């Protein structure tokens, strides 16, 4: 894809994050009033070890253009080793998805601790910029052109992504 999408295309990104580090880090980013793209919908799970690769597949099936998986840094897992198990699982998943022809830039993996609100902002903005560059994930949607379920334009009173034009432009530049 190319940058022709940049003007009108708002990426839909699903983030699977662990409760203890990244979710708290994202919360910190919010309470710190950090500016970031509003294209990410967060799904909170107990641990990265709880994130089945099938969640990512399901997100793509439901129309996500990109996915973020994020949790505690190594040695910081609330459950001691969940992130180590996840690291192996996602390394294998990351490699096999490439073999199947999925662009690795559609999947961002990161470690974001509870104190790294700024890093979360960077992860979000970088991912949104990457996906903006790649364009909508038409190839995946083409697997079932009539079956894509509508993406919620607004969740719990949040403003639809389109209303955030200035912030989104900032990210794209």
């Amino acid at each position, binding site marked *: 894809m190319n940058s022709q999408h940049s003007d009108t295309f708002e990426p839909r990104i699903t983030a699977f994050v662990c409760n203890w580090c990244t979710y708290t880090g994202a919360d910190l980013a919010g309470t710190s009033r950090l500016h970031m793209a509003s294209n990410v919908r967060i799904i909170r799970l107990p641990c990265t070890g709880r994130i089945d690769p099938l969640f990512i*597949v399901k997100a793509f099936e439901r129309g996500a253009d990109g996915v973020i998986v994020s949790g505690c840094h190594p040695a910081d897992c609330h459950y001691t080793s969940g992130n180590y*198990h996840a*690291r192996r699982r996602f390394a*294998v998943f990351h490699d*096999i998805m490439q073999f*199947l*022809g*999925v662009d690795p830039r559609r999947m961002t993996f*990161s470690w974001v601790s509870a104190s790294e609100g700024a890093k979360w902002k960077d992860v979000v903005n970088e991912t949104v910029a990457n996906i903006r560059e790649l364009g909508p994930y038409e190839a995946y949607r083409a*697997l079932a052109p009539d079956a894509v379920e509508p993406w919620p334009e607004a969740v719990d009173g949040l403003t639809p992504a389109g209303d955030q034009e200035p912030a989104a432009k900032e990210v794209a530049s």
Partner: protein
Amino acid sequence: MTGPAIAPAYAGVDELRRVARELLESGEVRVIIGWEDARRGARPVFITDPAEADKLIFDTRCVHNLVTYLDPRRDHVSELGRIGLVVKGCDAKAVAGLLRESQLSRDHVVLIGMRCGGVLEEGELPEPLALTPENVAPRCYGCDNREPTLTDHLLGEPQPEPPRPVMTIDERVAALDDLPLEERWAFWTEQFSKCVRCYACRQVCPLCICERCIVEKTQPLWIESAAHPRGNFSWNLTRAIHLAGRCVDCGECERFCPVGIPLSLLNRKLQQIVHDRYGYTASDDPENAAPIGDYRLDDQQEFIK
């Protein structure tokens, strides 16, 4: 041009029949699971009567991985009593897989290992053919377990190495790896679109051991059950990653696939990934920990921000 020659008779067959007969006569096992000759080639056989031990054969047509009968999903087989199982090297790796995951008690099975020189890609033949680059099962090339160690009886003469197939699985994987992403996507989605969701790949796999498969969980529906490209992609990907670091490359899933999806390429790629990242190769040593479910503090994480 003449076709491939008939393979020379396998020297260990008499020994196999003798061992099987003795195991049954002594009551050490209740049933021997091996191969017999049938109209359409070799096929699995269950023998409970010592007088029938002479039915057993072993030749290049014995492609089936009989370990699938030890799968805990098939408790009607384990209910027969202690089992004597005839295994090739690749099959022994599958037994090790079941032992590693505590799905099988070693006491429950007597393993009769056959020294193996490779098998045919297609076993439904009236006569055992000699292996050639055209007819050999590609997975046999480079086999590291032609003399299984996880056995109670090891029979047969040492066998020659299997021939190199016209194109090895590694070469086919490398050829796919060289394609741009879009073409790989096109290749795999086309292959998966053929899938009719018969789940033969799962049923035959000796290591697909879940009592209830994720694909049958419909509340919530994780994998769409209709045979359309999106659900097919999800299913084939899930089947493969659930076997990452567990697959023993017995090739049964691909052989059983009624629409010819090249599952061995997917399985081989996963073997390469776990080997490159974690130095793991499937072996018939049950103590050799599988890579998924294990970890090291210094595992690679170059893909993580």
